[in-house]
């Protein structure tokens, strides 16, 4: 059944006779026009990447960041309407702060996804608002260490907290994707935006969800993320793009549990490999002569 002309698609929160909220579906269309975003959850961390289409030569290169930090250990990337994404991030930061105020400890990735899922869902409930025109990917590393309570002044009892199961680990890398409806799932690899189909196909080839957990390491994931963004970029339709990548490792890894931009050298190396892989692909297809080296 088509939505247009029925009148059921003219306002948010209205069900059509077959039980759909067309305004939410239209919001998804706004996402599908946006630059591709992906997230990869690997063995020792999470990588986020986004394809930023350069809409004007006059934009200052590298200045307009699209991946934002929430608290210290979480990163958010999104596809769709950028101002809506900014709003999403502000709300996520407010949630993270409120969580700290209440529980004196950083919010976990799952809890932030839950709070933000609830927030987006609320924007599908009323005619007085419109849904968010974004799909957001939240990546985070919940600390496996026993964190001090915020504001703690001393060491407390020396014998440590009880009730623990020996050998049981806590925390780790997590990845969630939230849609305009407020629906969210946890992912091994997530993709949204214009090039999501191609990106998903590539993500599925990676070793992310094996029985012993993902095998891919953080550095490999950075390179795969760059490759996937380059691969899903549609040169025929879009002009140039800028690749932005961030990562989060555990406390023993390169980012020490913090969400940070991937260092320039590593990003450039990943981009070089991505371009090389693209060229190799093209050559294979064209059955042309071998590339040098």
């Amino acid at each position: 059944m088509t939505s247009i002309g029925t009148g059921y698609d003219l306002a948010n929160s209205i069900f059509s006779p077959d039980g759909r909220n067309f305004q939410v579906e239209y919001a998804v269309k706004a996402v599908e026009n946006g630059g591709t975003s992906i997230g990869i959850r690997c063995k020792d961390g999470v990588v986020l990447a986004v394809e930023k289409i350069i809409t004007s030569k006059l934009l200052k290169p590298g200045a307009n960041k699209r991946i934002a930090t929430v608290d210290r250990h979480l990163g958010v990337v999104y596809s769709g309407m950028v101002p809506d994404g900014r709003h999403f991030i502000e709300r996520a930061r407010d949630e993270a702060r409120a969580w700290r105020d209440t529980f004196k400890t950083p919010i976990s990735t799952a809890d932030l996804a839950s709070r933000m899922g609830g927030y987006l869902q609320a924007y599908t409930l009323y005619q007085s608002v419109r849904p968010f025109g974004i799909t957001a990917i939240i990546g985070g590393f919940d600390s496996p260490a026993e964190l001090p309570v915020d504001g703690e002044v001393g060491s407390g009892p020396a014998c440590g907290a009880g009730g623990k199961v020996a050998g049981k680990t806590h925390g780790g890398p997590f990845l969630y994707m939230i849609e305009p409806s407020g629906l969210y799932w946890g992912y091994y690899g997530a993709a949204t935006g214009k090039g999501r189909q191609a990106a998903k196909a590539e993500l599925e080839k990676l070793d992310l969800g094996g029985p012993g957990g993902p095998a891919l390491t953080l550095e490999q994931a950075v390179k795969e993320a760059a490759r996937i963004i380059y691969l899903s970029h549609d040169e025929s339709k879009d002009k140039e793009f800028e690749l932005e990548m961030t990562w989060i490792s555990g406390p023993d890894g390169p980012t020490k549990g913090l969400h940070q931009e991937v260092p320039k050298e590593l990003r450039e190396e990943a981009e070089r490999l991505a371009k090389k892989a693209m060229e190799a692909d093209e050559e294979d297809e064209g059955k042309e002569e071998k590339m040098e080296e």
Partner: protein
Amino acid sequence: MFRNNYDNDSVTFSPQGRIFQVEYAAEAVKQGSVVVGIASKTHAVLVAIKRNAEELSSYQKKLFPIDEHVGIAIAGLTSDARVLSNFMKQQCLGHRLTYGRNIPVRTLVEMIGSKAQINTQHYGKRPYGVGLLVAGVDDHGPHLFEFQPSGMTEEMIAFAIGARSQMARTYLEKNVAKFADCDREELIRHGLRALKESLVQDRELTVDNTSVGVAGSVKADDGSVKVEPFKVYDGQDVAAWIESVADDKEGGASAGEGEGEGMEVDS
């Protein structure tokens, strides 16, 4: 004009995922006269064409100082610009009072971005009908930002908004590589040349219709930074600059090139 069912308010998506009310608000920006901004490593400048309603009336101001280190250029609904300008002034003063420093320019711009985004998501509100160029200096040097009614804010090397601004943007794109190393005067001249590109036939820059605004942060050899507060120049103060770009062919007069958005509201 065409009408459709999805353009009555800013809380309705079209089947393609567009919000027409926001797009229409962006059209209002093109009704305003053109403003140009450029940032180099040391300075950020704004230049603007002022309009007068009739021969004997005064000219509508286009450049406004916000704080010591920030100024804006506006195109579109002046009264909406005033709301944003007042808000920005308050934020600057508030920041100065609580932290004793200049607010970082990006922080300030993102604040109006967030404010504008709210207006695109709630029934009964309307998007701002104004676009801004925000120029300022902070600890990271000079900056130029563009603000759109959608709440989109982006840092630019140079930009132009307003009527026939496409011509100015074409000039800026051609010269974009030069701006970073321009000195103060060169930067202003580039701004004025871009402005001239956007003028309709047989109109020219005069001391009455031209405004120039400059902020700078020049790093001395000993590492200390000398901040030049944002200042707007009008009237005879801009005469020398206008003179310096008169009949000047540098940058190539791109006459006959692209009519831009084709909205010729200047007459």
